[in-house]
C-alpha cells in the first residue's frame, strides 16, 4: 500500500500531448494514474469524503480544460497537485463556521465505537480532529513538502500564519495521541482488574 499522497508519478509525453489535444483516452489515462493521490490530498485537506470527491472531480475537469496552459517546464504531477490543492482550499473557504464543525468532529469521536471501546486514536483520526486550516497546513507542509511561503500564498496570509498553524497543529496532534493512549491504557487496566 502506498503511503503519503503518492503524487510524484511520471507521465509520458505521448499521453501529455494527447491530453493537450483533447483526446479523452489520454485524459482518462491521466485520471486513472492520479485519481487516488488526488483523492488522498483532497480528503486530507477537506476531511469529508463527499466534498473530496467533488473537489477531485472539479479539479480534474479544470485540469483537462486548461491542459494547453501547461508549459511542461516542471513535472506534470506538481501542476496537477497545485490545482487539486487550490480547489480543496477554496472548498474549505465555502464551509460554514469552522469552530462549529470542529466541535461536531470532536463529539463524533467521543461517541464513536473506537472511543467507547477504549481504542487509542491513530494518527489519521487525530488529523481529522484538527480544524480545517491546521489540518491543511500540517498536511501540505509535512507530507506534500510545501514551503511556508507557498502555504501563505494559498491561504492569502503571511508566512507567520503558516508557521503558527503548523506548530499548533503538530502540538495538538501530539496531545491528542498522548491523551488517547493514556485513556486507552487506563481503561485496559480497569477492565483487567475487574
Amino acid at each position: 500500500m502506498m503511503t503519503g499522497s503518492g503524487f510524484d508519478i511520471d507521465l509520458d509525453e505521448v499521453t501529455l500531448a494527447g491530453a493537450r489535444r483533447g483526446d479523452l483516452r489520454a485524459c482518462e489515462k491521466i485520471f486513472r494514474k492520479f485519481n487516488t493521490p488526488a483523492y488522498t490530498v483532497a480528503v486530507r485537506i477537506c476531511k469529508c469524503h463527499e466534498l473530496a470527491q467533488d473537489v477531485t472531480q472539479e479539479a480534474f475537469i479544470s485540469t483537462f480544460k486548461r491542459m494547453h496552459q501547461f508549459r511542461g517546464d516542471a513535472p506534470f504531477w506538481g501542476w496537477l497537485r497545485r490545482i487539486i490543492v487550490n480547489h480543496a482550499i477554496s472548498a474549505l473557504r465555502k464551509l460554514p463556521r469552522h469552530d462549529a464543525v470542529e466541535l461536531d468532529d470532536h463529539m463524533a469521536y467521543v461517541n464513536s465505537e473506537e472511543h467507547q471501546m477504549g481504542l487509542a486514536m491513530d494518527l489519521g483520526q487525530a488529523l481529522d480532529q484538527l480544524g480545517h486550516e491546521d489540518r491543511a497546513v500540517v498536511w501540505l507542509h509535512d507530507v506534500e513538502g510545501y514551503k511556508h511561503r507557498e502555504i501563505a500564498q494559498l491561504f492569502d496570509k503571511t508566512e507567520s500564519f503558516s508557521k503558527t498553524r503548523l506548530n499548533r497543529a503538530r502540538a495538538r496532534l501530539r496531545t491528542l495521541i498522548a491523551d488517547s493512549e493514556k485513556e486507552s491504557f487506563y481503561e485496559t487496566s480497569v477492565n483487567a482488574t475487574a
Partner: protein
Amino acid sequence: MNIPDQWYHATEDPLGLRQLEQIEPQYDGWKDIQSTLQNHQESQRRRRYTGGWLALAASLMLAIGLTVSQQPTSTQLPNAATSVPGLASVSGEDHVSALIGLSQNMEEQVKNLRQESGSMPAESAVYVAELEDLIAQVDSELSLQPDSINLWGQRVNLLLDLAQIYQQQWEIDYGRMASL
C-alpha cells in the same frame, strides 16, 4: 555537510504523517468527467463556428456601413468609379478596430452588470466561470494573433453571453425586490 535522512524526515515530518496510507476513492468519477469534457468540447466547437459567423456578419455589416456612408449623395453625380473604391477601402484593419471597439464596450457593460447583480445560483456561477475561462483562452490566442477577426468575433460573442447571464440575474433580482 550531509544531513542524515532520518534527521531530515524527523524535522520535516516529525509525526510520521507520510506513513499514513493512501485513501482509495469509493466512486469512479470518470464517466462524469468524460461527459463534462465532451459537452465542453462540443460547445467550444459550436462557439468557434458561431464566432466565425459572427465575425463574418460583423465584417459584412461594417463593410456595408462604410460603403453606405461613402456613397455619393443625391446632389452628386452617380459615378461607378467613386463607389467601388469606397468598398475596396474597407480593410481588415477597419474590421478588427470595429470589433475591438465593440469588445471594449461590451466589457464595460459586463463590468457594470456584474457590480449590479447580486449572488447567483451555482449553475450560473459555473457557467460564468466557464465563459471567463474561454475569454481568457481567446485573449491568450489574441496575444499571438492580435489581428484575427475570428478571435475578436469570438471574444465579442462570449462577452454577449456573459452580459446575458448577468442581465437575466439582474432581472430576477429586480423582480424579487419588486414583489416585496
